[in-house]
């Protein structure tokens, strides 16, 4: 079980500066419409983020940092990382309002509440931030990547670390996550194409997978898997059949065996990684290549 948490993302290009979020935050936290109580502040584009075009607006909001400077700087341990929610909790009783915490904060996420002179910061509204819900333009987004990580982060990546896919290859991303999710009680078929091309079935005596894996023909992935499944059913063993095929292996030359398998109600998980072309052989068009795309 890793330790990652949901967080709020700001899309400056969508922000109209209407401060509805601030109103929502003030109401959620203090019940009043006085936006001075708002833990979130939209400010004129004072702080541009590296690499982006200067935006009209910037967001001052605690992002519940992984390595929070505020917690380090606080002399009275009023700030602490909540292990469960990842939120940086503020303890009003210990806080002496010295504002040392604002030093080093990358996000202007901790500030003085001018109404009551106390330090205030966002606490993520128990995981369901009011500001995000209130924003009419979608400028605020609750990033839930962490939930995926919490659920699957600890599961083993069943491919070897080094696969020779191109830099940034979406297929490599897809197959690693897919196989991690499906698990090791599996027989994996990778019909010829980029997926075995990057070495999942290995090269000269070395394998790229930690699970049973094989090259079917580009034409018979579904029927080979069907045969394997038949025998395991016969032996009373429930093994998952997984195919990681490209669009050619599914919709062009591999379609007949797939259609036959479907008609016969064969049981297999057939993933089509549709990169819309025969990429392994150098980008020829396939049945799923949109007209005019090359």
């Amino acid at each position, binding site marked *: 079980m890793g330790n990652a948490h949901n967080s709020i993302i700001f899309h400056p290009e969508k922000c109209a500066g209407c401060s509805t979020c601030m109103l929502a935050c003030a109401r959620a936290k203090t019940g009043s419409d006085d936006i001075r109580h708002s833990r979130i502040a939209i400010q004129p584009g004072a702080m541009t983020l590296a690499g982006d075009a200067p935006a009209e607006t910037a967001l001052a909001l605690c992002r519940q940092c992984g390595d929070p400077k505020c917690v380090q700087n606080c002399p009275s341990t009023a700030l602490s990382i909540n292990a469960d929610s990842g939120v940086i909790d503020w303890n009003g009783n210990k806080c002496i309002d010295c504002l040392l915490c604002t030093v080093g904060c990358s996000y202007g996420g901790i500030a003085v509440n001018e109404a009551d002179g106390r330090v205030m910061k966002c606490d993520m509204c128990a995981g369901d931030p009011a500001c995000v819900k209130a924003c009419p333009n979608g400028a605020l987004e609750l990033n839930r990547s962490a939930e995926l990580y919490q659920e699957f982060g600890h599961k083993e990546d069943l491919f070897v670390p080094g696969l020779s896919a191109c830099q940034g290859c979406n297929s490599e991303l897809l197959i690693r996550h897919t196989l991690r999710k499906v698990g090791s009680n599996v027989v994996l078929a990778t019909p010829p194409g980029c997926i075995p091309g990057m070495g999942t*079935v290995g090269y000269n005596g070395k394998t790229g997978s930690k699970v049973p894996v*094989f090259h079917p023909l580009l*034409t018979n992935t579904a029927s*080979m898997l069907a*045969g394997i499944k038949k025998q*395991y059913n016969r032996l009373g063993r*429930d093994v998952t059949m997984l195919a990681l095929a490209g669009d050619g292996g599914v919709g062009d030359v591999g379609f007949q065996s797939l259609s036959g398998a479907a008609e016969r109600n064969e049981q297999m998980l057939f993933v089509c990684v549709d990169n819309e072309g025969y990429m392994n052989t150098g980008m020829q068009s396939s049945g799923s290549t949109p007209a005019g795309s090359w």
Partner: protein
Amino acid sequence: MSIDQSKAIKQQADAPAKSTGQARPAVSVKALRRLPDSVVCDGNEASAWAVALARPDVIAIYPITPQSSLVEYLSQFVAEGLIDAELMNVEGEHSVMSALQGAALAGARTYTATCGPGLAFMFEPYIRTPGLRLPIVTSLVTRDTLTPQCVWGGQQDAMLVKEVGWIQMYCESVQEVLDTTVMSFRIGEHPDVMLPVNVNSDGNYLSYGVTGIDLPEQADVDAFLGQKNINWHAALDPERPMAIDPLTGGAGGPGPSLFVGYRKGQCDAMQNALQVIEDAHEEWAQRVGRRFAPLIEQYRLDDAEYAIVTIGSMTGAAKDAVDAARERGEPVGLIKVKTFRPFPVAAMQKALSKVKAIGVVDRAVNFGWNSGPLFQETLAAAHGLQRYLPAASFIGGLAGADITTDHFDRIIHDTARLLDGQVIDSPVWVNQHD
């Protein structure tokens, strides 16, 4: 019955053994309905009886004339519980062989049958099976190939795939079809062989030729086949994870030597098969009491001056013709090839050493040599005799044509003329003037 009712039955019948409780016990032995001791049937039905005796795990089928009644018998036997196997009625021959490869890699003993255009469509996975070293048994109810379009017998389909690395045995009679089909499981699954096996029977003449045959006892067959072990060398099994057929070869690193190792391994296996085929036939003769010449059959060769060479079901009429010729004082003998792949060079040379001329009767055409394929192979074997052996190529029985004893009389007559210097350097088309 409404469509969804039949679909429901189909789904239930196909439903896998759920792992929750009602999974069928992986290992259980229950007496099968007793198989008959003898049957009057055709070659296709005989093949189905042989498959019932061999107890395969997974059978994949797709019908094609003249094999079609074979797969009908298989389906009927499975439905009646004579064969307890997973029967896959797939959408084409390509998937037939593919499904069986998958099943074999999961440990199944597998079987199918096809011919002609079906074999051509199956060719992509067919050529891969020997490399995977999977002992899949496939009967070829041989049929001539297109074009011209025909649905009748001939051996062109089996001959066209002779370089792929499958063991190929040709049967002379329906009884031999049954016995050879059972033997082929043992031959293919022998640890020193581990190669797929084709049992070839002539379309129409054997496939639909009805005659009386005897069935061996199931216990004898079980003892003869012994403990099956199909995927000890390569498995797709989560309990033994491995990659099957990774990319191999290229110019650098271990590639070249690895690749040569696999090819050489395949050739060694084919050579081992020669002895394994002989042993299998020998033990079959002892256990079941029927003896067939495993590689080459010599018929009345010891006192022969010249011989005709035959293959498949034409041999019956040929033997009758040889007997008749002998009564006319013609010193003719007969050499029958049963095992065509691996080609039994030594056994052929031993037979050829007894004669001074041969007439090779093919049921297929070798377009490259303007002769029959068996003619070309026999000549290649004759090279070892280190003497000139006059030979003539006869091509008959194409697309179901009938090679009768009259035809063989003329073949014997033509072959005899080779002894006194006559040269026949282009093929004699036996049925051209039928």
